[in-house]
C-alpha cells in the first residue's frame, strides 16, 4: 500500500499583507477587506527575487530522508496547477533533478487537476511504484509555483495565492502515512474563466461544496471509514470560510480542519495540503494509527480527497 515516507515544506521569508497584494492588483476597498474580515486571509509569502528552481530546491533540500537514497528514486513528479510555469526551453524539473542527483529518475509533470494535482501526483507515484520490480524504489513528488501573473495571484472574492513549496517521498509500502483511499472527480463543465462567465460561476459556487463533499465521501466509502474516524482534515488553503461552510454541510467539526496556515500563507497552489501536513506533524496533531484526510479542489474543476493512516 502506497506510503508517504516523508514530507518537507518551505515558505519564503517575505510576508506580504493582503492589503499590499490588493493594492498591486488594484482591488477595491471592499474587495480587499473581505479577505481579512470574512475569508480568513491576512498575509502571503513571496520570494520576488527567487526563481521557481529556488522555491522547489528549498523544499527538496529540507527532505532529510532523501539524503543518501537518491539512487532509489525512480520517479520525480512535479504537481502543479498552472499549465505553464517557465518559458521554453527552461525545464525547471530537469534542473531540479540534476541539482539533487536525481538525473537518472524518470521525471515528469502532473497537471490539469489544478490545485488538487498534488493528491493526484501521490496517487500516480503509488501506482508506478506498485508496478515497479524494485520494492525499495521511491518516488519524489514536488509542488510549488510562483505567483507571477494576475490570474496566478487572485481568484475574485475567493483567494489570494502565495508562494510555498513541498516535497514528498513516496514508497510502494511502509508502516506510516499509508494511503488507504483516493477519490477524485473532474467536472469539466466548469472549465473557463469564472470572472468572464457569470452564469457558469454561479453554478460552480453552488456545486463546489456538494462536489467536494462527494469526493470526501467517495474516498471514505472506498475503505469503509466513517467521517467520525477522521481525526484531522489537511485542506487546500483556498480560504477559511468555505471550509467552515463545508464542515457545517458534512457535519465535521471545523476545529479539526487545519486552517491555521490560511492566514499566514494564503493559497500556495498544489503545495497547501503538504505544507499543512508538516504543520500538523510539528504540532503533534498526527497520531500513530489515526486516520486523516487530505482534501483539495481545483478550478476547472477537480475535487479530490485522500484517506491516510498515520
Amino acid at each position: 500500500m502506497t506510503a508517504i515516507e516523508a514530507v518537507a515544506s518551505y515558505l519564503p521569508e517575505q510576508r506580504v499583507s493582503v492589503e499590499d497584494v490588493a493594492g498591486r492588483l488594484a482591488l477595491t476597498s471592499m474587495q480587499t477587506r473581505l479577505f481579512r474580515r470574512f475569508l480568513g486571509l491576512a498575509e502571503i509569502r513571496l520570494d520576488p527575487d527567487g526563481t521557481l528552481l529556488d522555491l522547489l530546491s528549498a523544499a527538496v533540500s529540507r527532505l532529510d530522508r532523501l539524503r543518501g537514497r537518491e539512487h532509489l528514486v525512480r520517479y520525480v513528479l512535479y504537481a502543479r496547477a498552472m499549465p505553464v510555469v517557465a518559458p521554453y526551453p527552461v525545464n525547471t524539473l530537469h534542473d531540479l533533478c540534476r541539482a539533487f542527483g536525481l538525473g537518472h529518475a524518470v521525471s515528469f509533470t502532473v497537471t490539469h487537476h489544478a490545485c488538487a494535482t498534488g493528491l493526484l501526483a501521490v496517487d500516480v507515484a503509488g501506482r508506478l511504484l506498485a508496478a515497479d520490480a524494485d520494492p525499495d524504489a521511491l518516488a519524489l513528488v514536488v509542488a510549488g509555483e510562483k505567483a507571477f501573473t494576475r490570474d496566478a495571484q487572485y481568484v475574485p472574492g475567493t483567494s489570494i495565492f502565495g508562494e510555498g513549496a513541498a516535497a514528498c517521498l513516496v514508497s510502494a509500502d511502509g508502516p506510516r502515512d499509508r494511503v488507504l483511499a483516493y477519490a477524485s472527480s473532474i467536472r469539466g463543465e466548469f472549465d473557463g474563466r469564472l470572472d468572464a462567465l457569470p452564469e457558469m460561476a454561479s453554478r460552480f459556487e453552488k456545486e463546489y461544496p456538494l462536489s467536494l463533499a462527494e469526493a470526501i465521501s467517495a474516498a471514505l466509502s472506498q475503505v469503509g471509514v466513517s467521517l467520525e474516524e477522521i481525526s484531522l482534515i489537511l485542506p487546500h488553503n483556498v480560504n477559511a470560510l468555505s471550509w467552515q461552510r463545508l464542515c457545517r454541510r458534512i457535519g465535521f467539526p471545523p476545529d479539526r480542519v487545519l486552517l491555521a496556515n490560511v492566514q499566514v500563507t494564503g493559497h500556495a497552489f498544489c503545495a497547501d495540503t503538504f505544507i499543512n501536513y508538516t504543520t500538523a506533524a510539528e504540532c503533534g496533531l498526527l497520531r500513530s494509527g489515526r486516520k486523516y484526510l487530505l482534501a483539495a479542489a481545483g478550478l476547472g474543476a477537480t475535487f479530490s480527497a485522500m484517506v491516510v493512516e498515520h
Partner: protein
Amino acid sequence: MDHETQTPLPSAQSQSAELRPRVFDSISRLLPRVLGREIPAMSADMKLMSELGMRSASMLELLLEIEDDLDIQIEVEDIDDAAMTSVGDLADFVASHAITDG
C-alpha cells in the same frame, strides 16, 4: 466558540427583532451600490442569486457594507445557502448574527 459567549441569550431575540427592519432598510439602500445598478420594487421575497445575480463575493461585500452602515459585526461562519436565498432571508440572518457594541 466566541459567538456563544458574545451573544446574550435572553435578549438575543429582542435584539434581532429590533435590528431586522434596520437591516432590511440597509440592504435596500446598499444593494444597488454593490450590484452597480438600480433595483426597482425591492421586496423581501426577491431572490438574491437567481433574480439579482449575486454571487458569494458580492454577498460578502454587501455584508461588509451593512457592517459599516449599521456599525455592527456579523458572524458569518454559520452562513449557508438558506441565509442567502432572498433579501428577507439575508436580513433575518444578519439580524440574528449581529454583534453590536451596545
